[in-house]
C-alpha cells in the first residue's frame, strides 16, 4: 500500500493553489463575502479554465475523467483559501448527471457542467435537519414536484438543481421551469450561500430511482466537506502560527509564550494527522466500495469537528482582531460551521459510523 499523492495529483493541487494565490487574496475574499450574491463570475470562470468544474466528469463530455480523490484534493485547496462559489453543489450535480440512467439528459447537460458555463446544485435538506436519502419526504411523483427544499447551496445562481425525493430518488429541475420559487436564506457562511426552493407542480425529470446512487452522492458530499475542512483548518493553523511569530506583547512575540505554544501544538496535533481520513475516504469511494460509507461518515464527522475546534482556537489566539469582520479568520469559522452542519452534524455521522461498523 502506497499512501502518497502522485506527481499529477500534486500538480493539480499546485495549479489551483497558484490560481487562488492571485485571484482569491484577502481583499477579494472579503469583497465576495460582502457582495450580494457571494458568487464571483470571474473567479468561477478562472477555476473552470484550469479544469476544476469538470474534474471528475467524463472526458467525452469535456471533463478530465478523474476520480473523487482528485476532486477532494482540489476541495482541500479551495477550502484552504476559503474560496467562495458553487463548487460543492456543482460538483455533486455533475456526478449525479454522470451516474444518471437517463443518458439523454446526461448528454444534454454534462458538457455545460464540465465547462462551468452551466452551474449545478443539489437540493437535499427538508428542514428539521432531514438531510439523507432515507429521510427525504418530498413526493417522488413524476412528472412534477410539489414541496419545499431548504439549505440549497447557491440556489439563486444555479441553472440545474438535482433534487432528492422520497425513496432516495433523484430528479433534475431546470432553472426556468415553471412553478419554481427560489428565495435566499440568510447564510452564516457567505462564501457558500444557501437558498430555499419551493416546487409548485414544477416539471422534473427522473435521474435515477436507485437509492444507492443517492447514497453514493451523499458520500461524495461527505468526502468533499471533509477535504474542505482539512484544508481550512490547516490554513487557520498556518495563519495563526504566522501571527504568533510576529505579534508582540510584553516585548516578545506572543508565540514565545508557553501557554500559546501549547494551544497551537494541540491544534496541530488535532488536524495534521487527520489528513489521511479524507484521503482514505476518497480512495474507498473510488476503489473499495464496501468501505466507502463508513469511511465517508467518519471523515466527515472527525474533520469538520476538528475544523470547528481549530478555527475557534485561531480566533482566540488572534485576540481582539480575530473577532472582527475584517479578519479572514471569521470567514474560516463560518466555513467550519457550514462544513459541520451541512448534510448533518458530527453526532449524526458518528451514529451512522457506529451502525456501519456493526457495533
Amino acid at each position, binding site marked *: *500500500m502506497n*499512501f502518497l499523492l502522485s506527481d499529477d495529483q500534486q500538480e493539480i493541487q499546485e495549479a489551483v493553489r497558484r490560481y487562488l494565490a492571485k485571484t482569491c487574496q484577502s481583499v477579494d475574499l472579503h469583497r465576495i463575502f460582502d457582495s450580494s450574491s457571494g458568487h464571483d463570475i470571474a473567479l468561477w470562470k478562472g477555476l473552470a479554465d484550469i479544469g476544476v468544474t469538470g474534474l471528475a466528469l467524463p472526458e467525452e463530455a469535456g471533463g478530465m475523467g478523474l476520480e473523487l480523490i482528485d476532486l477532494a484534493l482540489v476541495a482541500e485547496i479551495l477550502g484552504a483559501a476559503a474560496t467562495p462559489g458553487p463548487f460543492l453543489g456543482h460538483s455533486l450535480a455533475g456526478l449525479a448527471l454522470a451516474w444518471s440512467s437517463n443518458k439523454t439528459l446526461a448528454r444534454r447537460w454534462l458538457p455545460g457542467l464540465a465547462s462551468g458555463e452551466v452551474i449545478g446544485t443539489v437540493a437535499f435538506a427538508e428542514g428539521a435537519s432531514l438531510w439523507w436519502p432515507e429521510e427525504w419526504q418530498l413526493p417522488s411523483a413524476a412528472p412534477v414536484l410539489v414541496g419545499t427544499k431548504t439549505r440549497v447551496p447557491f440556489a439563486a445562481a444555479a441553472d440545474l438543481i438535482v433534487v432528492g425525493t422520497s425513496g432516495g430518488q433523484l430528479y433534475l429541475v431546470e432553472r426556468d421551469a415553471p412553478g419554481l420559487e427560489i428565495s435566499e436564506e440568510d447564510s452564516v457562511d457567505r462564501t457558500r450561500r444557501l437558498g430555499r426552493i419551493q416546487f409548485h407542480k414544477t416539471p422534473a425529470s427522473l435521474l435515477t430511482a436507485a437509492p444507492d446512487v443517492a447514497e453514493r452522492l451523499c458520500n461524495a458530499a461527505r468526502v468533499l466537506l471533509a477535504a474542505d475542512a482539512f484544508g481550512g483548518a490547516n490554513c487557520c493553523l498556518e495563519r495563526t502560527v504566522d501571527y504568533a511569530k510576529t505579534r508582540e506583547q510584553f516585548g516578545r512575540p506572543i508565540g514565545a509564550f508557553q501557554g500559546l505554544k501549547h494551544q497551537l501544538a494541540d491544534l496541530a496535533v488535532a488536524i*495534521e494527522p487527520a489528513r489521511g*481520513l479524507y484521503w482514505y475516504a476518497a480512495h474507498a469511494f473510488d476503489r473499495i466500495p464496501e468501505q466507502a460509507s463508513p469511511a465517508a461518515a467518519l471523515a466527515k464527522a472527525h474533520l469538520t469537528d476538528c475544523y470547528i475546534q481549530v478555527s475557534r482556537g485561531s480566533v482566540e489566539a488572534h485576540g481582539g482582531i480575530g473577532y472582527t469582520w475584517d479578519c479572514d479568520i471569521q470567514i474560516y469559522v463560518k466555513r467550519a460551521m457550514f462544513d459541520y452542519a451541512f448534510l448533518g452534524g458530527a453526532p449524526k455521522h458518528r*451514529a451512522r459510523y457506529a451502525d456501519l461498523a456493526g457495533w
Partner: protein
Amino acid sequence: MEEPGIGTSMLVPTLLECGTEALKQRFIPETLTGDIRWAQGYSEPNAGSDLASLRTRAELRNGQWHINGQKIWSTLAQHAHYMFLLARTEPDAPSKYEGISYLLVDLRQPGVRIRPLKQMTGSAEFCEVFFDDATTPADWLVGGRGEGWRVSKATLNHERSMIGGAESSVELFEKLLSLARKSNFEGVPALAHPIMRERLSVLAGEVQAHLYSSYRQLSMTAHGQNPGSITLMNKLVNTNISHKVAAIAQDLVGDAFLLAPPTGSTRGAGPEKWNLRFFASLGLTIGGGTSNIQRNIIAERGLGLPREKNV
C-alpha cells in the same frame, strides 16, 4: 526474553547510528536474541524534563571510566545486565549540553546498587540506580567524548516512535471494543447505548487518523521524502488516544473500577485489569518526555515558534 523496547528498540538503533564497529559486534547480536538485557540511564532526581542538567560524573582514570551519581526511572534495571547512560565527562564545557557522554556500563559490579521503585500500579518496573565509583572500559563510549547529548536525542527519537506507534493504538482500541461488547452501560448493552456509540466513534476517528498518518509517514520515508513535523506529534497523538481509551473503559468496567488491578498473577483478571491501563495511560504522559515537553517540541521545532530562552 528481551523486554520489548529497551534494548532492541532504543539501544540497537543508536549503536547502528553512532556506535563503533567493536561495540556493534560486542552488543547487537546478543541484544537481539534477548541474551543481553538493557536499562536506560538518562533521568536523575534533579534532571527530569531538564535532562541536560544531569550531574552523574564519569572520569577517565587508568584506561577506565569511573562513574559516580544516581539515575532514576530506569525501567526494569533490576533484571538488566547493562545500562546505556548519560554522564558528565567534561565538567568545564561552556554549556550544559556539551560535556555529556553516552556510556555503556555493566550493572553487575560492586559499585552499582539498584533499588526498585514501587509504582502506583503496585508493581515495580522502575528503579533507582546508584553508582559509587563503578567502572567501565574507556572505549565503551557511543559517539565521541562530549557528544552524548546528540547521541541521546537519537535514542529519544527511537523511544518516542516506539511509544507513538499507531499499531498499538489500533490494538488498544480493538481491546476496548471487545470490552464494550461484554459490558453493560446504564442497564443496557454498552454498544447499544447512544452515548457509548458516540464516544467510541469519536475515538475511532482519532485512531483511524493516527493509523493513516503512520501509513503516510512510512510511504514518505520509503520514498526518500521527509514526513516533516508530523513525526514530532506521534507520541502526543498516541498519549491522547490512550487517555480517551482509559476514560471510556472507566465507564464500561462499572464498579470494578473500585478494585485494585492484578499485579503479576496474584489477583483476578476481571474488568479491573483495565485499571492497569488507566494507570499506564498516565505513565505515557510522562515517559519519554512529558506531554508538555512534547508540545514545546512540536511548537518550536515543528511550527517554528520562538524557542524558550536559557533552555
